[in-house]
């Protein structure tokens, strides 16, 4: 299911917003490390608490995340294009998957290994900086969703309420100005 490295055109076709998130000049260094893969509906990408060695970016489709205990699961939610999985294993320093990840419908992904992420840090630290800002937004969103206890839906499935997926507008980082400073300080949106 893994294809060769991505070219710029195919990435742009699938995910034009990535260029605005990273900046046009920072997409090419990232592409040198990305591999394409496609999952069919229901196919598993990661198993909760199994070893993980890469980040995965959703290009199209959706991924469903759940936490497991034996045969029982808590459904955390779904993430869409522009969002990643695998970041917890890298930043927590514990390279195991923190949830089971399966495709919800046919889903295209780009794979970036932790080793390649480290290499990218040396080759293009700005790209890594902007990606890391996106990871921080995703982690905060997932923490917010998991702050509430799960509920049981009418079908008996245990799930968390809330949207796990972070929209593009929140993934890109803009330099802070005085106005931003005052807005955040005062809690104005």
């Amino acid at each position, binding site marked *: 299911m893994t294809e060769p490295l991505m070219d710029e055109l195919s990435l742009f076709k699938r995910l034009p917003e990535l260029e605005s998130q990273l900046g046009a000049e920072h997409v090419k260094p990232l592409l040198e490390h990305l591999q394409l893969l496609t999952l069919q509906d229901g196919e598993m990408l990661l198993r909760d608490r199994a070893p993980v060695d890469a980040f995965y970016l959703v290009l199209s489709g959706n991924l469903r995340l759940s936490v497991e205990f034996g045969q029982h699961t808590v459904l955390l939610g779904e993430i869409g294009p522009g969002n990643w999985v695998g970041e917890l294993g890298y930043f*927590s320093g514990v390279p195991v998957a923190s949830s089971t990840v399966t495709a919800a419908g046919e889903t295209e992904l780009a794979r970036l290994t932790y080793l390649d992420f480290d290499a990218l840090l040396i080759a293009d630290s700005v790209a890594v900086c902007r990606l890391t800002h996106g990871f*921080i937004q995703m982690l905060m969103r997932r923490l917010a969703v998991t*702050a509430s*206890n799960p509920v049981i839906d009418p079908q008996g499935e245990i799930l968390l309420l809330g949207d796990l997926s972070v929209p593009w507008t929140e993934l890109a980082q803009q330099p802070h100005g005085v106005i931003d400073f005052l807005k955040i300080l005062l809690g104005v949106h």
Partner: protein
Amino acid sequence: MLLRNFLRNLPSFQYLSETDVDHVAAAMRVDDYPDGHVFIYQGRLNKDMFLLLDGEVKASHYGDGGRYYTLKVLQPGEIFGLPSLSQGKPALTSCHAIGRVKVASLPFSAYMLLYQPDSDIGCRFQHVIASQLARDLHDRHDALRKLLAQVYGDGGTQGA
């Protein structure tokens, strides 16, 4: 205790250079707090980044069902207060001291300076933030697994 020595020994601060750590330490203020001191109130804007140096801090959440429950008990070396501070939104959790604690705090203005996008120190500081958030989420997922274990109490081998 010298704050910069404490910071240098934290795994997440290994991303920072010696000079970075000196800058962070210089911008932080260390204080002792009594048992029960509330650092962050759920529903209010938090304006400091806190680093627990000694003692324990409980993070709790008042849920929609009217229940108040513990999300996590923080240990020395953990940072708290990040989501509300970073997003400029009301905090989703309350954090209070369990017993006497020693905490270093970084004011919002210094946090914003450190987090400047595309600056060298900003990029490295983001790794510190991401590491703590990942640790928090990792712990939260563990708590969800424990909840499943309590609900089913069967080692998870039986169907729901």
